[in-house]
């Protein structure tokens, strides 16, 4: 317990009482993980961290306890296990939706701009649904109907990847409640393929 707290304080910003982005970066280099690596996001998820780029003491404690780590090396060793856990279907959806919320930095913010979404998609979903993610990112960049993506569309895309057969979209029905952006995406893909 004490060791966890001490570890926390070694990275935390004195005046804030929290680990700030700088502290996280230090932590990452100590763990020999890039700070843009998806595993850091997974760590934040495990901690149930609320604010992007910051860890509070409580969140830290939560995460470290769950991972059974109290030193940096133990933490690093726990990462593969964490990855496996996240990839499990039961947990992955939760992680996916968490990653969206984590990126909402402003107080009343409900959507994320296209550029950031593309990066986030690639990070979070890329390894699972490479083809869908790549094509969707391409579409997002050229379309002009939407400048931001909201949570509903974000989750919609996840369901889309899971349920709809790719790349023929044979079981896609635009009369159902799929978000409009996905209807447009499918149309665009079908045009491309003819």
């Amino acid at each position, binding site marked *: 317990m004490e060791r966890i707290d001490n570890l926390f304080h070694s990275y935390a910003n004195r005046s804030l009482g929290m680990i700030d982005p700088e502290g996280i970066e230090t932590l990452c280099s100590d763990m020999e993980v890039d700070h843009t690596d998806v595993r850091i996001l997974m760590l934040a998820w495990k901690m149930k961290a609320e604010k992007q780029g910051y860890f509070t003491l409580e969140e830290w404690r939560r995460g470290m306890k769950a991972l059974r780590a109290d030193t940096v090396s133990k933490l690093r060793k726990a990462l593969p296990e964490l990855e496996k856990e996240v990839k499990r279907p039961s947990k992955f959806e939760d992680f996916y939706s968490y990653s969206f919320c984590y990126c909402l930095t402003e107080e009343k913010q*409900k959507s994320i701009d296209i550029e950031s979404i593309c990066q986030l998609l690639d990070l979070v979903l890329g390894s699972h649904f490479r083809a869908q993610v790549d094509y969707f990112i391409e579409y997002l960049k050229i379309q002009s109907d939407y400048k931001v993506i909201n949570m*509903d569309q974000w989750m919609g895309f996840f369901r889309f990847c899971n349920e709809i057969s790719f790349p023929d979209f044979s079981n896609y029905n635009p009369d159902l409640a799929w978000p*409009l952006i996905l209807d447009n995406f499918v149309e665009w893909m079908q045009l491309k393929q003819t």
Partner: protein
Amino acid sequence: MENKAIGLDKGWDYMQKGITKLKRILEGLPEPPFTSEEYMMLYTTIYNMCTQKPPHDHSQQLYDKYREAFEEYISSTVLPSLREKHDEFMLRELAKRWANHKVMVRWLSRFFHYLDRYFIARRSLPTLNEVGLTCFRDLVYQEVHAKVKDAVITLIDRALLKNVLDIFVEIGMGKMDRYEDDFEADMLQDTGAYYSRKASSWIEEDSCPDYMLKSEECLKKERDRVSHYLHSSSETKLSEKVQNELLVAYANRLLEKEHSGCRPLLRDDKVEDLSRMYRLYCKIPQGLDPVANIFKPHITAEGTALVQQAEDATSNQASSAPGVQEQVLIRRTIELHDKYMAYVTDCFQNHTLFHKALKEAFEVFCNKTVTGNSSAELLATFCDNILKKGGSEKLSDEVIEETLEKVVKLLAYISDKDLFAEFYRKKLPRRLLFDRSANDDHKRSILTKLKQQCGGQFTSKMEGMVTDLTLARENQANYEDYLRSNSAAHPGIDLTVTVLTTGFWPSYKSFDLNLPAEMVKCVEVFKGFYETKTKHRKLTWIYSLGTCHINGKFEQKIIELIVSTYQAAVLLLFNASDRLSYSEIMAHLNLTHDDLLRLLHSLSCAKYKILSKEPNTKTISHGDYFEFNSKFTDKLRRIKVPLPPVDERKKVVEDVDKDRRYAIDAALVRIMKSRKVLGHQQLVSECVEQLSRMFKPDIKAIKKRMEDLITRDYLERDKENQNMFRYLA
């Protein structure tokens, strides 16, 4: 009387004499009829034999002998006589024998009546009557009925026929099954075959109207047959059979006949033939469907052809004035509607199937765009023209009323009703403000009709506009009074002001036009007057809607010019300078390029060249110079110099789109508020239905609005089922 019991044989001998006498009578042999004593004796004999104490109670034996009497007679006399005859003669014989048999049954059962009362009743045996008839049935009918049926079908003699057929009915003893099975079934089949043969030859040779005439006659003939000799229960079955063979089997070929079928009849106004067609087919279940299925595409084709005509005419004749062909189209569409509605009401007896077909057909082509204009816009323009002093044709009041009625009917078929409303709303003010002499009643009546069709919301603003004008006239009277009482304030120019309530009228852009000095004074004076009436209202001056009467002192004569305020402002500049450049005019007046181009064009390049332009080209460019054209003249003393209106179509479409977005939002929220939870497809379809009175919403637009509502936390998607939505209070 004997007190001794009567023995069976002795008693029967006595009865036998009576039976023999009866037979002789039936055979037509000379024999006096039964006297009442003879009858009494016969009756009493039976009575005694039945009431004797056993073992002399002969009821059972008598019952059997009764039957045997019939059987014997039938076998020995009746059957042989029938067997030796054929066809009509056989039928005649049968009818006679049957009549005889009935008489025999009647008499014998009277003699033996006592059996009916106790013996038969006690043992629940068939009555004497039934026994008698059963004998005939089992012995005679069974044997001959097939032959009889064949003979009947070829028989002509109606009376005989009726008698024979009655046998079939009566032999059933209360049930129709003998008639139906032994006779009717075959008769129907035979009739069917007969008509089938006839139909196959008629369909080749005859035209549709002739074939229908013949069919009608056949049906009538068959009905007569029934009333004359067939049993009434055959009527429906017979009619059905005939209809089947003549009308249903050949329905398609008949209706599709190239030169005389349904389509040509519709085209050529053959009202009588069409009415007959309706009469014939309306009795057949779903018989009218094929007719309606020809009716609808026919109308659609005609309507679409009209649209195409208009398109072609406008693209070919560049010389015809814009909008003329479209107006012609509307007029022709109205005529088309009248023509086919007449068919529906007269020939097709207002049947819902045809009303529906008409409606659907019109909906198809009424929603096509013509030369880039939606039909909603064309209709609005048409209305506008009619109301403008009776339009180009100077129509009478009644004709205007009627035409307006028809226009509103056509509106029912257009799905973008709100587009019509917007266009109409845009044209209405211009008409109201510039055409004061047009009839107020018409304006009000069309508003009432529109209100009935589309609801109060549609027309409330328009009604507001009409009311504003009435108030404005009052106001003007007050203003003139004010001027009279403050003669010093008079600006020297007559000014009429119409004050509009902002909410009712379309939004107009008001430019900061630099008014000529004379007009500025007018404005000030009116402002002064208005402030005496109310201090809480702000006046915004819309010069673009104003009209000005200016006297142009040309060399030949003075001509009064009726121009818009903007045009007047331009012209008045030339009081101070002889020659002005485009940029100078622009600087003086502070107008946009677009407006100025239009203005100058109307004054220098159009019909009346009030200003002369240098260079003398047909279009205005920024380097042009303008001079007062003193040489201008016209045979009239007062001319109107029109200013072509701005193309407001784009703006109207934009406004309508915006309103539609709000309407969809409101409908979605309303539905979700009452249902709380609803599936996606249901929500969409309910939304479409609610809005259908005004327009047909695009599914994608609805989806987009739903997403917007989700973002604004009105709705949320259900966690389990992504196709369900929940209302968030």
